[in-house]
């Protein structure tokens, strides 16, 4: 009945991961369609692989195969397909994250290391800035040489302030605290990332781990920030990956996701569709001799939920203050949530 369908209900849902009841508005029709991608077919559930339908058990293997094939030319293809714009997206991503020195970052599906390298450079830059500003202001060591100190036994206001600052600034401590772990399910992508790290001279600052986003090999409450850039649409069960993100983050930790999303503007959308389906597979064939992987890429973008739906999924996993930021009119979007 059409009338009933359009009524929106406030339904209490238990958050999948946090056992906290959140209230979310759901339309009646949405409840029945929420499981449409998980059709029961006997005992085997089917899911989407681009525009194909395959069994869920096969999807991880097929995605793995795609990325083994594209690993060696991954970065060249990224530059060719997005005309270099992906670098701006990732720079913006790091600006949104704005990590302070001392952050422990887990970069999932971070294969070739783009986000991790930016993180390391960001932290180094922050530390340099701090050292510069503190170096300019700090002249004396008030704790050790106190000859010019006041006649009264009490320290002056300036000394008090300087001593506080000095107490906070020990470089070795900060460098120890800032950590980044790169986790990817595909070893070939990690190998390519390691090569790049060597070339950039960053190999000592990074840890590379093979792991599945749906079952992370890390303990609970162990990272301050969890990032996933252009990886979550390849995961078979996105909800599981979000739950795992919730699990490994410390309270107050931030979940940040950069992913392709839906373009709402119809003019830009038609140009984008044309470019995606006409040009990108051709680029894949010409540069990487691989039409099918790049056909899968553009199809998987179309199958990924839009900004609002994905934000809802993040909320259901237990994250709060979930927001999103569109990049390039919705071609990509940065979703952010906090574990609080």
């Amino acid at each position, binding site marked *: 009945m059409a009338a009933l369908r359009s009524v929106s209900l406030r339904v209490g849902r238990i958050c999948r991961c946090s056992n906290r009841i959140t209230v979310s508005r759901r339309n009646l029709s949405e409840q029945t369609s929420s499981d449409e991608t998980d059709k029961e077919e006997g005992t085997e559930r089917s899911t*989407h692989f681009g*525009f*194909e*339908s395959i069994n869920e058990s096969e999807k991880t293997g097929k995605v793995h195969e795609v990325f083994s094939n594209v690993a060696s030319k991954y970065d060249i293809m990224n530059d060719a397909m997005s005309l270099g714009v992906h670098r701006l997206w990732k720079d913006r991503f790091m600006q949104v994250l704005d990590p302070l020195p001392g952050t422990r970052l887990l970069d999932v599906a971070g294969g070739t290391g783009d986000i991790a390298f930016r993180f390391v450079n960001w932290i180094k830059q922050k530390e340099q800035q701090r050292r510069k500003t503190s170096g300019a202001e700090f002249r004396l060591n008030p704790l050790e040489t106190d000859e010019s100190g006041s006649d009264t036994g009490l320290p002056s206001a300036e000394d008090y302030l300087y001593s506080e600052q000095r107490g906070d600034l020990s470089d070795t401590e900060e460098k120890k605290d800032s950590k980044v772990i790169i986790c990817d399910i595909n070893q070939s992508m990690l190998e390519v990332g390691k090569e790049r790290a060597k070339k950039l001279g960053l190999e000592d600052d990074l840890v590379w781990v093979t792991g599945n986003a749906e079952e992370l090999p890390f303990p609970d409450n162990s990272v301050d920030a969890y990032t996933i850039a252009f990886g979550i649409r390849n995961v078979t069960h996105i909800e599981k990956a979000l739950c795992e993100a919730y699990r490994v983050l410390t309270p107050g930790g931030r979940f940040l996701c950069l992913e392709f999303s839906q373009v709402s503007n119809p003019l830009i959308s*038609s140009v984008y*569709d*044309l470019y995606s*389906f*006409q*040009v990108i*597979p*051709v*680029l894949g*064939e*010409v*540069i990487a*001799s691989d*039409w*099918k992987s790049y*056909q899968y890429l553009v*199809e998987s973008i*179309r199958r990924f939920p839009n900004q609002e739906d994905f934000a809802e999924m993040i909320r259901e996993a237990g994250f709060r203050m979930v927001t999103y930021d569109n990049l390039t009119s919705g071609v990509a979007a940065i979703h952010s949530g906090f574990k609080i």
Partner: protein
Amino acid sequence: MAAHSRIFLPFRFAIFTSQNIRLRPRLILLKAEHYSRISHQEGVGASSPHAEEWTPPLYQEHVPTSLFQKALLTVGSAAVAITDPYRHDMIAVLGETTGYYALMRIRDQMKADPVGQLILSERPRINTRTVDLEELRNLPEGTFGREYVNWLDRNDVTPDSRAPVKFIDDEELAYVIQRYREIHDLFHTLLGMPTNMLGECTVKMFEAVQTGLPMCAMGAVFGPLRLSSRQRWKLRNYYIPWAVRAGYSAKCLMNVYYEKRFHEPLEELKADLKIPPPPQVPKSTSSNYSRLYKR
């Protein structure tokens, strides 16, 4: 430059000599309904008038493409093929995207010949599974099969390295171009040319005359750009004219059932197919170098 404008005039690749030319409705650009094969199956978008133009894959490895994509592929693959000669798959793609009409002409030629008809119906393939290389090695010296495996060993190639056909939108023509690719090595043996750039350009010119494929002509014209001037001189004065003459005098080599003729002596086979022997190129030493180079 190796190729002369005079050579192109008598080329037999007039595309409209084929009697069976059919101008199918061609997809210029894929429509939005074609993107979602799932929505197609569920009936969404099937009411649109463009829905019937979508061709599902006609054979394994077939990738249906629109005219726009074929144009892009042509430009891209040509650019990559000339800059990176190790990308043989790009030359293959170039052949597929530009060769549709030439392939129709070849198919007509094959249909007009009894052996060609046999090949089209039986569809023999040449790879390590279908051709027993050990058996060919045991043939006496001087036979076609023995010379073929000697050539394979000498140049360190295998018949398995041919890329599958992807962009031809007709199942029979896909076989024709696959057959052409697989007998390319046999052409090398028949002509006595190695797999270096010089030999490849010569064989490409020969094939351009024989088959009329635009990719062969492009390869023969642009391939020599990567050669040294001495090699280009040899090509221009000896190899290319010989290749063109051989291409015209030889019978249609797509109509030969090579698998059944491996035991024949090579020289007799060449005589039967009317392939002249390779040219005698004078060795350019330091003494006659300048004399030879004076035009």
